[in-house]
């Protein structure tokens, strides 16, 4: 295990964020956005993007207060043990739940589309692989990300471009730029899980030369991935129409199923796509496992690092297996929304506290 603080460049952070977007965008996000009120799907997407960038800015602002430390150490230094408990405990809860749900959701999708008879306990082997990768440290994850993203993102973009066939633009609902009824939709807030990828980098701040600018690679990755994300929603709508797209559990995967070209050598495009996404899922799980192990170590400094990874990996594996149904995953992502929003807003509390403390020091 490599505990050395190898620096990560902005490019590597950008790649890691791309991987997180690739892993979290396809399994539930299109369904959630299609079920927001209104019908102008670009609006909840753009709102999510802006909120994500603001959240990342706050988060990197918090990390910049003590360069060379990870988010947990920064919080501990600014707010002390009570602050650490207020941050690390909800973070651990959220990261653990998000990991189990991402792993289980992809296992379910693979089971439904490619490997119908393979048991779930076997499909969850993505978790032990991610645990081993996480145990290698952030530098190992960063290097693996470069390879995975080099394979994964061009294929994802290519497959999205193939989805441009059979589009009928009259099937789209009106743009209605003034309709903000999506703000009242439960599904809009649930969909925020896609935009909080910067949280998973909370254990990586100490690897950055300038933590204050960490939001920039996040913003760049979000903007670069936005067309692909829009494709995951609009391609099914413009092919199937809103009614059928909304009735499907995985509209984008069904869109891929509908593609048929004489010149296309690959028959099962969906299988290729899912195989690629699994690479990004492994990468994202490893990032989350690493941050969860870091949170555990911040709370229990006496915990041996190896034991922390083994415990987190085993715990995630078992809990992913215990998830009873797809409906539970949908419900789980919704019930975690308050925790997610709390974690995104927490850095502003840290920032405010440190400002107040600074003024107090000046007065003194």
């Amino acid at each position, binding site marked *: 295990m490599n505990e050395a603080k190898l620096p990560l460049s902005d490019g590597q952070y950008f790649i890691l964020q791309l991987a997180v977007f690739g892993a979290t965008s396809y399994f539930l996000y299109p369904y959630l956005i299609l079920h927001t009120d209104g*019908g102008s799907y670009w609006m909840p997407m753009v709102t999510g993007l802006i909120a994500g960038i603001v959240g990342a800015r706050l988060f990197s602002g918090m990390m910049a207060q003590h360069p060379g430390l990870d988010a947990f150490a920064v919080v501990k230094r600014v707010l002390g043990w009570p602050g650490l408990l207020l941050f690390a405990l909800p973070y651990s809860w959220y990261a653990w739940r998000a990991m189990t749900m991402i792993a289980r959701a992809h296992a379910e999708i*693979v089971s*439904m*589309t*490619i*490997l119908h*008879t*393979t*048991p779930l306990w*076997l*499909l969850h*082997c*993505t978790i*032990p*692989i991610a645990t*081993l990768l996480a145990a290698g440290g952030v530098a190992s994850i960063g290097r693996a990300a470069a390879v995975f993203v080099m394979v994964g993102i061009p294929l994802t973009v290519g497959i999205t471009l193939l989805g441009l066939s059979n589009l*009928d633009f*009259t*099937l*789209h*609902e*009106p743009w209605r730029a003034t309709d903000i009824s999506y703000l009242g939709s439960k599904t809009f807030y649930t969909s925020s899980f896609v935009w909080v990828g910067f949280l998973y980098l909370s254990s990586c701040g100490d690897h950055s030369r300038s933590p204050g600018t960490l939001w920039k690679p996040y913003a760049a990755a979000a903007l670069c991935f936005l067309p692909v994300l829009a494709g995951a929603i609009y391609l099914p709508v413009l*092919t*199937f*129409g*809103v*009614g*059928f797209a*909304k*009735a*499907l559990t995985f509209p984008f995967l*069904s869109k891929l*199923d*509908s*593609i*048929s070209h*004489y010149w296309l050598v690959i028959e099962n495009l969906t299988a290729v796509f899912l195989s690629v996404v699994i690479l990004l899922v492994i990468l994202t799980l490893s990032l989350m496992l690493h941050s969860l192990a870091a949170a555990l170590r911040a709370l229990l400094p006496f915990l041996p690092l190896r034991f922390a990874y083994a415990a987190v990996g085993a715990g995630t594996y078992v809990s992913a297996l215990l998830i009873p149904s797809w409906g539970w995953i949908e419900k789980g992502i919704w019930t975690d929304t308050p925790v997610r929003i709390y974690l995104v807003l927490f850095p502003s509390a840290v920032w405010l506290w440190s400002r107040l403390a600074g003024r107090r020091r000046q007065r003194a």
Partner: protein
Amino acid sequence: MNGRSKLMRWLTILGMILPLVLLQGCWDIRDIDNRMLVAALGISMEEDKSVKVWVRFPLPHSQLGVGSGGKDFLTASQRGKTATDALDQLRARMPKFLDLSQTRAVFVNRAMAEAKGIYGCLDFVVRDRMMPINAIFALIEGDMEPLFQRPNPSGELSGIYTRLFFEQYAGGTPQKNKVSLWEVFSRHYNPLQQSLVPLLTMDESFQFKLKGNAYFTDDRMAGWLTPEETLIYELVTGRLSPFEIETAAGANVKVEASTAHISAGWKSGKPDIRIRIRVMMKLMDTSKASPMSSREIEEEVNKLLEKRAVSVFAKTQAKGSDVFGFGNRYRSSLPAGRYEAWGALYKQASITLKVESNMRNVGLKLLRE
């Protein structure tokens, strides 16, 4: 390196390799020789209102010529309360796994489409991803048995024949109007557009021939357009591939490309749809008895297509079946709550179609007499 760290390194390597071995996913796999792949699936309604399912399996060629009487396919049928029930009963009779994942064509008989509708017998396809949603879909008029029992006259595998019949890269023509399963599902969920599905009948020489294209109202077949009338659908929806038409004066022209401009508005509370179609064509043949100028041929083509369009719109409007998807253009002016009323609005719609044809070259007329 001490013994303990050496052991840890080996354990780590083992820990990395073991999941990779498992991740290739082969588990309880059914080998290809233990499956019977369905190439074409038929669903028909029987006289007692029960459902009969037909399946056609391609068989690997045997040099010994044994099995299935030397045929390269096997046909099976099964009655049931529903298509799913019939398939379940069929599974109970089969020695191998019934694999629908490679189905290339799905047929439903006309009686069922008229009496029960098509979505009800096909929804199992999307509910459980057991069949490709890009399989070709068509209606069959008459008995389904000959379609499933006769060998393909041009020798292709079952299912592939149907795809070739419809695909533009093989025998497809605009009149045949290729429809995939997902298009049928999409129309079912869209109250602003109805399906237009090929209607096939048996043919003496070939497996089947095109009778026309069936249009639907509320999921049930309401009538059908002739192959010639279908060309209007292709022109309006922009799905056109080159086709030939004969004018009243005996000239043959080939329509090579077309563009349709559709403006959808309201007039006196009723939908007002204006369509302008520009057609590029070339002359294929002309009557020597009454030679015509290019201008005259263009006018003839305009008249012919406009007249045909009137009949097509009248037919579909009478049943409130908007196969063209004009209703989709009213999404911004029609509240979502009134989408279901589009069928009634379409009946009252004023539709005008203007054709502007343009002879790109005069083809054979360039030949010296």
